[in-house]
């Protein structure tokens, strides 16, 4: 097991290096630079600025310097918000995004799995159709539409929940709902189809023939086998939800890190682009690693380490 983890960690570092390299050169191949906007800066000022951020050096030198700083976990200062470093921005934004993300994930996973199980057990019944209608709506209605609708109805018309901002648990309800519906729908549909498949398996019939109760059959025998596909999508889903979403955070004025992804690209804020990408990739790679571990836990047939002698 430890051998496997070490091997995976090494592979993760290599993956991350690929991502950094690719992002770095892609980013620099976009036309424009942080300093040529409509604002007229004199040429001398521009040159000084470029010198300060080492933008006048050849690309490979910049790349080398960047790699060095990444190894020391220093993503450098933001070019556009000169008083802040990228580390500070992520340090401030990520906890907020993470808080919203984790609550959203819990809501989405539990309600999605529950909905999926109910739909599967009532296959082709009214409850199944109802659950799947909700799921299809959840997937097809964009979350910004849902968010504005929720604000309009629950915050403006009924005034039972705050419109926006991020200060108390009550403030969390609307953004969580808006953000969780999509993933919940995906998880519900996956759980349903995979549950339906598992329920026709012979071992479920064996369990019934043993006289087990429906509850035991569903939760002990069926669910564990049905969860593998759900766990698969959960990895990338979790990474993107935990690192914040631009739209939802914008609508609800939540000071998360979602906005940095978008803003940094528009303003060619090179260190921030790199910082957010590396950060997101790291989380994603870690989540995929967790998914692989979860496979091994859920299904004993999946061996994470090589068998001795094979």
């Amino acid at each position: 097991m430890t051998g496997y983890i070490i091997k995976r960690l090494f592979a993760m570092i290599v993956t991350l290096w690929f991502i950094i390299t690719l992002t770095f050169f892609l980013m620099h191949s976009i036309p424009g630079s942080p300093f040529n906007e409509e604002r007229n800066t004199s040429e001398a000022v521009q040159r000084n600025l470029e010198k300060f951020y080492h933008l006048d050096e050849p690309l490979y030198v910049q790349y080398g310097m960047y790699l060095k700083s990444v190894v020391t976990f220093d993503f450098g200062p933001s070019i556009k918000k000169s008083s802040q470093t990228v580390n500070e921005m992520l340090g401030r934004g990520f906890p907020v995004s993470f808080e919203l993300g984790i609550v959203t994930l819990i809501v989405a996973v539990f309600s999605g799995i529950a909905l999926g199980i109910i739909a599967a057990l009532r296959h082709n019944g009214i409850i199944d159709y109802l659950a799947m209608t909700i799921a299809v709506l959840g997937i097809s209605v964009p979350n910004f539409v849902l968010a504005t609708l929720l604000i309009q109805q629950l915050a403006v018309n009924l005034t039972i929940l705050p419109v926006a901002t991020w200060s108390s648990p009550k403030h969390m309800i609307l953004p969580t709902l808006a953000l969780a519906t999509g993933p919940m729908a995906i998880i519900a549909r996956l759980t349903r189809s995979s549950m339906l498949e598992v329920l026709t398996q012979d071992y479920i019939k064996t369990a019934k023939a043993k006289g087990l109760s429906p509850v035991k059959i569903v939760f002990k025998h069926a669910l564990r086998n049905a969860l593998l596909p759900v766990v698969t999508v959960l990895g990338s889903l979790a990474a993107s939800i935990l690192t914040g979403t631009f739209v939802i955070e914008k609508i609800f004025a939540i000071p998360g890190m979602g906005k940095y992804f978008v803003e940094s690209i528009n303003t060619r804020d090179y260190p921030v682009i790199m910082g957010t990408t590396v950060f997101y990739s790291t989380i994603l790679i870690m989540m995929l690693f967790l998914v692989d571990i979860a496979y091994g836990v859920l299904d004993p047939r999946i061996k994470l380490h090589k068998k001795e002698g094979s």
Partner: protein
Amino acid sequence: MEKVLEVKDLHVTFTTYGGEVKAVRGVSFDLLKGETLAIVGESGCGKSVTSQSIMRLIPSPPGRIAGGAVLFKGQDLTKLKESEMRNVRGADISMIFQDPMTALNPTITIGEQIIEGIMQHEMISRQDARKKTLEMLDLVGIPNPVERLKHYPHQFSGGMRQRIVIAMALVCEPEVLIADEPTTALDVTIQAQILDLFKDIQRKTGVSIMIITHDLGVVAQVADRIAVMYAGKIVEAGERREIFYNPQHPYTKGLLNSVPRLDLDGADLVPIGGSPPDLFSPPAGCPFAARCDFAMEVCDRVYPYKTHLSREHHVDCWLQDERAQKMLAGIK
């Protein structure tokens, strides 16, 4: 001998988009204590549906027990509530399915899968349930059971898995064991071992076994009595010797003729021509008439009465009808 299980005029139908499929059409038989009854027939004749209906395991909907009774020690199982039926399954009547590769849950240790069955039906501690499991694994011939208890199904071979499935079915000491094609998925040497195991366990525990198969070799090896099913009906039944040496229904004869024989060339294999009738609208007469070399006009029109040839041996065929015998006597 005491009757453990009595199936009386059982009808099972499946509702599909195309209409009602009458899969089992009035099947009756008894299972005596400690005997082995084999139900034989080709695919789709309703033998599996019959066995699953006894356990009330047919998926419902679309399946439905449309009539008849299944008496277990005098109690009609078709009338029980689902929760009462759960107390019967696994404890009084157990079932083994065809494919041991898929009959065990791949994510649960085999020990746990056996123990949970015991805990479901008996008020004993986990420790005692574990002890019982070990004894049972030993009985079915799993070497080193203490160690093997912690293993998952994929760590066993097919034959070993079938032994585990048998252990699982027998651990609560049921009175009836229904084995649905228990050896079909196994290779021949393992088949023989498993059939020996059945006989051995029956001797030790006195369990009544109902074995569903299309393999006449298996039947010859284990059955005390045989019931031949065709198109949802039992067309001939009797003791093993009677069916093998004195088959009377043309279908039974056809089945026996179609068994490959070592002393003949492969070219001499005699199949039964034609195919079974459509069970959406089964024929009014004998369902085998269309494939039968000896069919008469009456066969097409009226389903034959049951004719008793001996105490156990009976057949549904006009050729054996007593009136035919009388007619024959009249001519002579």
